[in-house]
């Protein structure tokens, strides 16, 4: 502690779990937006990641409310948000945004996309998996040309609705922080936009990782055209994200409002590692430089020609760095926003615990959970393109290897 903080500010209200929450929802939004690139904007190169992105988004979305729930003082009352929401509260809208996105966007889109395969996979088969897949078709087993066309059209329409929904899902998380006028570190109109672009960055980077790891585990070659495209998109998103953050930073510094002194103190005393080193240098500048050099943007080969093998490795490392960077971004927003007193006269500290509901172990478990969910999803509805080839001949159940688990 340093300087004066209000007595009630001794305890930090939002800890590690609330850092995890925007991190997870960001990955959801990012993965979905990547999927929609393939679907709506017809970017053929990223097609191999389309279904995988959808399933990833679903897996992370299922886990996303858990840190919130675990954090509540009275989780058993959480349903009150649905029953008696305060319509003036940004947070009260969470339930509705979440439900809309889960039910109307992700589940529907995945269902329409997989319906044909579900029918084919379950046709004439016995056993639990076939039975479960038959259940998932919801009895809609018509595979006529007309119905498949309808599936396609519906899927596309849902994706079009889904893009603004994904924007809304994560922009809204940014709004939860950005609308708190009491907190000068949070209160910024740019917050939802910055959240959104950092979400896209983290989502693309996550798909780079998951696509590479699953390909490796399945002993399938990584599609370099796809990787290059992902690398280029990651670079574009990083540029926009970093520009917005710099704009926010410059604006604050230039306006130099009442809070500037304490925020500068916080930056130089509390956030050197997490913000300057992790978020900016490791998580943004280094990936920007690497991708700028090797990703095919202005030139077809990238500024520096690098063999495929090395380029893959760089993409992989960059994706990990970006994840570290985005997690640090969430940390700096959530924890950073509570390290200074609203009296603007002092700084406090955050002591992370290891055990306990708000501890590192629980947070870690919640962050790993989506990967477990993804593993199960992949078992039931394999997203690989080659999986479709097996339809009718091999038992599809054995096809997807225990893949996603690894990353």
């Amino acid at each position, binding site marked *: 502690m340093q300087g004066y903080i209000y*007595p*009630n500010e*001794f305890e930090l209200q939002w800890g590690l779990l609330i850092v995890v929450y925007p991190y997870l929802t960001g990955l959801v939004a990012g993965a979905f937006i990547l999927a929609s690139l393939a679907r709506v904007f017809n970017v053929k190169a990223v097609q191999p990641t389309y279904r995988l992105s959808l399933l990833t988004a679903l897996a992370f979305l299922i886990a996303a409310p858990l840190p919130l729930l675990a954090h509540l*003082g009275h989780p058993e009352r*959480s349903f009150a948000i649905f029953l008696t929401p305060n319509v*003036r*509260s940004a947070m009260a809208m969470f339930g509705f945004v979440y439900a809309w996105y889960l039910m109307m966007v992700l589940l529907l889109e995945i269902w329409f996309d997989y319906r044909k395969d579900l029918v084919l996979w379950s046709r004439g088969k016995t056993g639990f998996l076939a039975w479960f897949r038959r259940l998932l078709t919801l009895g809609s087993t018509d595979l006529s040309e007309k119905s498949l066309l309808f599936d396609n059209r519906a899927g596309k329409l849902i994706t079009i609705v889904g893009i603004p929904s994904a924007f809304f899902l994560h922009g809204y998380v940014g709004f939860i922080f950005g609308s*708190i*006028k*009491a907190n000068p570190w949070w209160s910024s109109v740019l917050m939802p936009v910055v959240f959104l672009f950092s979400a896209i960055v983290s989502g693309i980077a996550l798909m780079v990782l998951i696509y590479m790891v699953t390909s490796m585990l399945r002993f399938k070659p990584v599609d370099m055209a796809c990787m290059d495209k992902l690398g280029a998109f990651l670079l574009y998103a990083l540029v926009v994200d970093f520009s917005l953050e710099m704009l926010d930073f410059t604006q604050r510094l230039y306006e130099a409002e009442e809070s500037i002194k304490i925020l500068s103190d916080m930056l130089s005393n509390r956030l050197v590692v997490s913000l300057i080193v992790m978020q900016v240098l490791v998580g943004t500048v280094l990936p920007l430089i690497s991708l700028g050099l090797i990703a095919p943007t202005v030139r077809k080969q990238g500024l520096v020609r690098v063999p495929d093998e090395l380029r893959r490795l760089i993409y992989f490392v960059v994706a990990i760095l970006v994840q570290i960077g985005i997690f640090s971004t969430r940390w700096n927003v959530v924890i950073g926003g509570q390290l200074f007193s609203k009296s603007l006269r002092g700084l406090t500290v955050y002591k992370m615990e290891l055990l306990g509901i708000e501890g590192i172990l629980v947070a870690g478990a919640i962050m790993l959970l989506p990967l477990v969910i993804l593993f199960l999803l992949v078992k039931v509805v394999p997203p690989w393109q080659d999986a479709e080839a097996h339809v009718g001949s091999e038992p599809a159940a054995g096809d997807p290897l225990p893949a996603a688990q690894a990353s």
Partner: protein
Amino acid sequence: MASDLPRAGGGPPRPGSDLDRRAFVGACLAAAAPVLLTAAQGSTTSAQAPADTAAAGTPPRYDRRNHNYGMGVDVDKCIGCGRCAAACKEENNVPRDPHHFRTWVERYAIRADGECAVDSPNGGIDGFPAPVGEENVLRAFFVPKLCNHCANAPCVQVCPVGATFTTEDGVVLVDEDYCIGCRYCIQACPYGARFLHPETHTAQKCTFCYHRVVQGMVPACVEVCPTGARIFGEVQRPASPLTRFRRFNALQVLKPHLNTEPKVFYANLDGQVR
């Protein structure tokens, strides 16, 4: 009416006379009721004095719509004794540790070089030690802090379930049985006036001692203040100690730029206070 007066002395009661007497007392009470009620209400509004409505026999019906409470704080009168903070903890079962307060006292010490040191050891309950570098202090003063019961309360706005609400009489309260403990209100409060109760796991804050106020008493902190630095009363009513306080003092509120419209008004407040 004079003919109906019960006779003094103990003559044998005539048949029906008892009834007459009863009827008379009833009629008297009925006739006096409006007067009694008005008197009782008057004592509620001039809330500095504890109401003695109980003496009237029939407690007045409390109508929230007739009130809008606020508080005045005269910074020059505060001597930093911390009795308000102690009384508040006693009255409202606030955790006794030094990190949970519904009200607390801050000490400001402005040095000759313009630097301002602020402290509030245990909310001021145990008094204040001599400030470091005392000889350089140009001016020092105490500032009691509490929930501002903002008319435009950010905490009420953000509560996802409406557990935090503004009563009709202008007090911001938390429904302990409904709060889900998300702590968004604590983040939204610019004044650090809220905390999560470690036992109930719900948000808590100053209630203006609502349980006392609706019975015509003043908040505990106001009651115990030895210098009258805290003035409780009605914001709108002309005959209120608060109105008098507002009439005779130039007032300020905390963080006015946030447009929360606080209803705790400070007199003689220094610009250093945030």
